[in-house]
């Protein structure tokens, strides 16, 4: 019988090692280093501090003890008294956890992981199903991903054991997904609650804790709407349930990054109760139906003073079907009085079949092209003014409307559909 060959193994991240420098020896746990720091060796000392060395200064890394994975047992208790919900996990900060070995992040995907980080939610509901269609940051998603989420949600919503669905998601473009789901899920029978976190889950201060507890309350409520649930203010006291089409990320880092624009939240949700603030569609026993047609050849263009209108030729050449133009003020882009007026180009592009819609760059408020002659001139070219609809929602809706081939044939029909309130995206009474 052959003797096994003993191979001297190289220390791996997680192993206990000695790092020998010329004068000193450091003992600690070897860590993985970030991609851009390949020349560095990182060590966690017994005190918990991490320190680094330039690889070239190291004489030897001696293995003392191999990393032993500790098996942790977390029992997720199911309680027949509690209502059942389902979760769809799609990525983002809320589903990321720090991996000490790597120094980077891993995804939280199992019920055990979720329980470990967010046990607050399990006090309120049983999470009986967790679906993971994909794990992506929100900036990496597109219409197809939104459709995938909608399909997953449809299946869960039509399961009679499930009272509602929570979707965890990255924040940056979360309001696009919430808009898409608002149009894609027809005859919505139960709550669809999107939630997020702005502070990572490793922090004891993470906003995800309250957001998820409130999301659970929303998911078992009577509100059969697509809503975004998150911090109402910087305080950890309550969240708002915000309409999916009327919400926008308005801060890069605060907990209350999402605000309702041109409308009101459905409800104020505390960790133990819900206060209704406006009318909503009630849950019912019918089946939700997926209507996830979309046209990918749509664009969102922001106008700025002095901008050359020939930018529109790019979209024309690349066979775009529709453009949402973010205009200034009540709905203005430069006219014939400007050096680079847009009127002629707008007319030409629309004549060749491209649908142009107007949304407000101001974010808040309603468009009105009739107040100034510039507005009237632009309107006369055929631009569809989308009232108080958010530009991001407008993009998603235009895609959805143009995705319906029978509607897309006729500009008047497109205009009619764009201006018909389908999912709270239009509000004819602005109070603020």
């Amino acid at each position, binding site marked *: 019988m052959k003797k096994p060959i003993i191979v001297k193994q190289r220390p791996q991240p997680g192993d206990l090692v000695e790092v020998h420098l010329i004068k*000193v020896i450091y003992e600690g746990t070897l860590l993985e280093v*970030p991609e851009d*720091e390949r020349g*560095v060796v*990182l060590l*966690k*000392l*017994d*005190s*918990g*501090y*991490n*320190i*680094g*060395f*330039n690889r070239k*200064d190291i004489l030897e890394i001696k293995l003392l003890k191999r990393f032993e994975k*500790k098996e*942790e047992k977390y029992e997720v208790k199911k309680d027949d008294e509690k209502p059942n919900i389902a979760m769809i996990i799609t990525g983002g900060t809320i589903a990321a956890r*720090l*991996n*000490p070995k790597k*120094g980077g*992040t891993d995804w939280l995907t199992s019920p055990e992981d979720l329980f*470990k*980080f967010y046990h*607050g939610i399990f006090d309120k509901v049983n999470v009986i199903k967790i679906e993971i269609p994909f794990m992506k940051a929100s900036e990496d998603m597109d219409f197809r991903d939104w459709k995938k989420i909608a399909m997953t949600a449809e299946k869960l919503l039509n399961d009679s054991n499930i009272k509602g669905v929570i979707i965890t998601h990255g924040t940056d473009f979360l309001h696009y997904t919430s808009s898409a789901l608002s149009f894609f899920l027809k005859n919505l029978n139960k709550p669809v609650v999107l939630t997020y976190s702005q*502070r*990572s*889950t*490793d*922090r*004891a*201060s*993470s906003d995800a*804790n*309250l957001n998820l507890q409130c999301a659970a309350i929303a998911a078992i409520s009577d509100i059969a709407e697509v809503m975004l649930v998150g911090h109402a203010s*910087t*305080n*950890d*006291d309550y969240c708002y349930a915000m309409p999916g089409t009327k919400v926008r990320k308005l801060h890069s*880092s*605060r*907990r209350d990054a999402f605000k309702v624009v041109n409308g009101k939240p459905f409800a104020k949700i505390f960790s133990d109760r819900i206060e209704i603030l406006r009318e909503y569609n009630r849950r019912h026993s019918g089946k939700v139906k997926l209507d996830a047609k979309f046209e990918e050849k749509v664009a969102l263009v922001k106008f700025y003073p002095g901008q050359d209108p020939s930018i529109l030729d790019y979209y024309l050449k690349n066979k775009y079907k529709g453009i949402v133009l973010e205009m200034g003020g009540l709905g203005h882009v430069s006219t014939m009085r400007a050096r680079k007026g847009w009127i002629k180009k707008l007319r030409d592009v629309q004549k060749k079949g491209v649908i142009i819609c107007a949304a407000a760059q101001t974010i808040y408020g309603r468009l009105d092209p009739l107040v100034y002659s510039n507005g009237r001139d632009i309107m006369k070219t055929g631009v569809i003014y989308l009232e108080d609809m958010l530009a991001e929602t407008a993009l998603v809706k235009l895609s959805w409307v143009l995705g319906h081939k029978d509607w897309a044939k006729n500009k008047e029909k497109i205009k009619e559909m764009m201006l018909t309130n389908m999912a709270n995206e239009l509000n004819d009474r602005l109070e603020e």
Partner: protein
Amino acid sequence: MSEQKPEVDYGKIGLKSGLEIHQQLDTKKLFCNCPSVLRKDEPDFIVKRKLHAVAGESGEVDIAAKHEASLDREFSYEGYDTTCLFELDEEPCHEINQEALKIALQISLLLNAKILSIAQVMRKTVVDGSNTSGFQRTVLIARDGFVETQSGRVGIATICLEEDSARIIGDKGGEKIAVYRLDRLGIPLIEIATEPEIKTPEQAKEVALHIGEILRSAKVKRGLGTIRQDVNLSIKTGKRVELKGFQDISNIERAMGTEVKRQQDLVRKGKSISEVRKVLPNGVSEFLRPMPGAARMYPETDLPLLKISRDMINEAKKNLPRLKKDIESELASHGLNKEMTSLLLKENKVEDFKELMKVVENPQVVAKVLLIYPKEISAREKIPLNKTEKILNKDVLVNVLENLKKGKISEGDLKHVLSRILIEVARGGDHDRTFEIKKEDSSSVEEKIMKIIKDKPGLSFNAYMGIVMKQFKGQISGNEAAEIIKKYVK
């Protein structure tokens, strides 16, 4: 005769102890651009938060963290116009304050420690609410230094730079709501931990004083609460205990003595446990929280590795602060007496002194101008000393001494000139104009006096003095006037 108490033989009971000294640095905050000022006024706003226990990087929930989170408390944070989003845990941290880092490097050098070339800012889980984020940022800067004391060399294990915590203001509604003020949160702290090589409470006090002196030579904050000491101690077969919250060094000896006795008792009963205890003003300690483990440290993921280059260390070395005793001997070599030396150090004016010495190399004159005259003038003119010193600032003193050097004013005039500048500026004038008058050529002064004598011949010396002083309205000193008049009047 009074009965002698039996002394504890610390060697025999195997006392092992180390100090942890925290000192605030005098810079802006460590990870944002807010000023490090403590506020006494009413807060501008209140933010309400909760913290929850989270699993550390190795997956286990830190025992200390669990303890606090189990209290399920609500935290109320008081904010001001000096508070920013970062301090509210609403924005990622900014880069580490470079000035604070430089001071930390200087202190490391003064403590003979080895500075790490690559460090990583860590998050230390703290869930008692004293940090809005639920952790304290801390970075290990140097290791393995030492201080020489009368009772031998004591090793410095680690030197860290970290954020100070928010100040607790009070508990509202009992245990459920804790109120913190955000003014102190994020002030840079240097944390110096000695090796557990201190063998007696007396030695602990000596080491604390010694390190305190080194710290005060650097740009650190002064006054109550700007330096805090913790003591780690254990006795043979007992567990390690951390005693926290000494504001006053004189308490260290007593509190250590008391804790040693408590430990002896616990060891006898086999009940010694590792924990953090808070020292009360009477020297007795009470349980604060369980001893935190290494599980509560993980990297600050919002920052890259902190690389400390040779250049940075050399820069820190370039103007390395000097210890008090070195400064004292230098000042003595200038011929300055002990009283003036200690006054200079006390009033933190050594740098000003040196600068003025560059103008006029006469320590007695410089000390008078800097330390004595402003106080005298302030008292005489009834202008508060801080206002006096603001007006008679270093630049003004340099200007005055330059005029002395050029012979435009005499040594005997100094106090008078300073007094005039003070009155003029305090009245809203500007001291340059004061100088313009004063700077009048002495020959033209002499000319004017000559003219006065010529116009009114035959008067007495005293009469001419009266006329001259009235006419010049204090623009020249009595001595000066007398000298000139003497030339022309017998």
